[in-house]
Structure formats: structure tokens, C-alpha cells
């Protein structure tokens, strides 16, 4: 039996530093232990809570691991056909221009089957927010190779690693959409350490605030882990992410206030 280190005398509302936001429902998320999806869901919910827009926000759920995102957010949400979330968000935003509309998509949804919808929505400059979770693999279907899989990275359909001569090069879709005139804010963040979580939250806040300006798409990529698909424990997956994913997908802002950030 573990020793008890509780301090019940300081459990008062004025001493509360952090608790799960009410914008997330009490349903237990179906994600694997340590998956970045849960952290990003929580950050979006916290931003919605802090901006006080719970009744003015409409989310669009994708197909992929996060297909059941609408079970976890206590907001209005709509499920899109595979890859079509930006097209659906375009329609919702044009019918309700005063609402905050965001899509939540993984790399199989946004960068593979939904490439056309993503690029055209970004090029048209729709006034929406796109949250893009990049884990370099198709997590839900069993860890197959995705367009974002790193060169040499083993997956269930590339067991000896991705051979770029045969299987092509990984797609850096965030760099691609940053070049388009319709994007206003493009950034790449991660959520595996406390400092990066705080930065990602600021980026998501900015992406939602930008919808008030009506200047174009705000695109937030979050480099995340897929422990089950990568066949690693959560702690090993975070280390692998830092050593392999981040050199290929460097973190930072690519476009701020419609201007490219020079590096």
C-alpha cells in the first residue's frame, strides 16, 4: 500500500491552479495512453472556455482516430466525410459568418485524402481555423504509411522503412499551405513537454482570435506521437519524436499576420 501524501487542507477553490475544463465532457477518451490527441482536445477546450465562445463555436470532426471528437467537446460539432472537413467548414462559415468554425484533422485525413479540400480552402482564404495533428502514420487503421511518414520510418506497410525512391517523399503540407495567399497564420507546434503545450495553447488561441479579423485561414500543425502505431511506449515515443520527427518537421511559426516568417 502506498503512503498517503494528500494535503486536503489546501483543496479550496482559491488555491485551485488547474483542473479539467468544463468544455470537455466527462466521457473517457478512447485514445491510446499518452496520445497527443487528448492534450490537443483539452487545449482547444481551454481556449474556447477562456474566450467565452462555447455557444458560438462549431467544430468539424474528421475521419481517423479523432472521428469521435464530438463525444468529448461540449460544443456544436459536425462530422465530415473523409478529408472533406475544410469544405464542410467553408459551408458552415459562409452560412454562419459570426460563428467560430474550426476543423480538427489528422495527417491521413488532411494530407492524404483531403489534400484537395485543404489546399483549395487555404487558397480561397476561408475564414476558418484548421487544427492539424501530424503523427506521420495512419493510427486508426493499424499504423500504415501516410504521406507524412518520415524517410526510413518503419510502418506496417513499409516494414523495412520508407524508401523514398519507391514510395516517394514525405509531404510537408504546412510549408505548402504557408505559400498560399489565403492563409493568414500558419504555425507548427508540439505537445509533448509542458513548455511546448503552453506555446501550442497560445498558437491555438491566436488561430481562434484571427477569425474575428476575417483575413483568411489559420492553420496550426501539431507534431504528435502515435505510440501504438510506432510500437513504442509513450515515454519512448516522445524521445523518438524529439530525435526523428522534430528535425524533419521543425517547430515554429511559418506565417504570422499574413507575412512569411524569415528563418
Amino acid at each position, binding site marked *: 500500500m*502506498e503512503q498517503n*501524501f494528500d*494535503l486536503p487542507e489546501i*483543496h479550496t477553490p482559491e*488555491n485551485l491552479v*488547474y483542473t479539467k475544463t468544463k468544455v470537455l465532457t466527462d466521457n473517457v477518451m478512447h485514445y491510446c*495512453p499518452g496520445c497527443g490527441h487528448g492534450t490537443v482536445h483539452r487545449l482547444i477546450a481551454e481556449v474556447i472556455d477562456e474566450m467565452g465562445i462555447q455557444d458560438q463555436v462549431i467544430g468539424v470532426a474528421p475521419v481517423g482516430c479523432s472521428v469521435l471528437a464530438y463525444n468529448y467537446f461540449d460544443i456544436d460539432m459536425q462530422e465530415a466525410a473523409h478529408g472533406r472537413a475544410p469544405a464542410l467548414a467553408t459551408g458552415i462559415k459562409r452560412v454562419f459568418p459570426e460563428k467560430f468554425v474550426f476543423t480538427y484533422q489528422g495527417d491521413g485525413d488532411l494530407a492524404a485524402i483531403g489534400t484537395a479540400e485543404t489546399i483549395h480552402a487555404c487558397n480561397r482564404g476561408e475564414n476558418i481555423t484548421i487544427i492539424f495533428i501530424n503523427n506521420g502514420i495512419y493510427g486508426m487503421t493499424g499504423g500504415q504509411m501516410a504521406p507524412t511518414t518520415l524517410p526510413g520510418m518503419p510502418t506496417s506497410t513499409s516494414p523495412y522503412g520508407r524508401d523514398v525512391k519507391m514510395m516517394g517523399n514525405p509531404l510537408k503540407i504546412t510549408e505548402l499551405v504557408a505559400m498560399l495567399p489565403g492563409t493568414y497564420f500558419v504555425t507548427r507546434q508540439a505537445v509533448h513537454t509542458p513548455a511546448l503545450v*503552453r506555446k501550442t495553447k497560445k498558437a491555438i488561441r491566436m488561430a481562434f482570435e484571427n477569425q474575428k479579423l476575417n483575413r483568411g485561414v489559420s492553420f496550426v500543425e501539431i507534431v504528435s506521437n502515435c505510440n501504438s502505431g510506432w510500437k513504442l511506449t509513450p515515454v519512448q515515443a516522445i524521445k523518438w519524436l524529439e530525435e526523428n520527427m522534430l528535425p524533419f518537421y521543425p517547430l515554429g511559426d511559418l506565417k504570422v499576420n499574413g507575412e512569411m516568417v524569415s528563418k
Partner: protein
Amino acid sequence: MAKVKGDVVIDIERCKGCEVCTTACPNEVLAMSTQVNSKGYRFVVKVNADCIGCANCAIVCPDGVITVYKSKV
């Protein structure tokens, strides 16, 4: 300088035992239990009283398991 005392409350039934919080804690307050919850996951427990209420564990937790309190004593 006033000393800061923190405490974490862990919702053990929601915890999936991913151990991300144990690496985020600066004072090594958190560790994995030897017991399991009703879903069969080893959950996280406090192993010392050095918590400073920095909330690092809570903000990296993917499942929103941890509630943090902080007080000056």
C-alpha cells in the same frame, strides 16, 4: 520567502498509465502505482510531499486526470 505547497488530486479511474506526467514533474513527485484501476491500467500516485503546484503534470496529461492546488504556507 514564503514557502509554496502544492498538491495534486488524481482521478485514478480516468488514468491510463502513460507515464508522461512522471517525466514532466520537476520534483519526481509522481510514479506509477503497483495496483491497477478498473480498466487494468497502472495509475499514477504521489510518492513524496515535494509538490510545488507547478501544474506541469496536469498540462501534459492527455486525459485531464490531474487537478492541481497551490498554497503559500
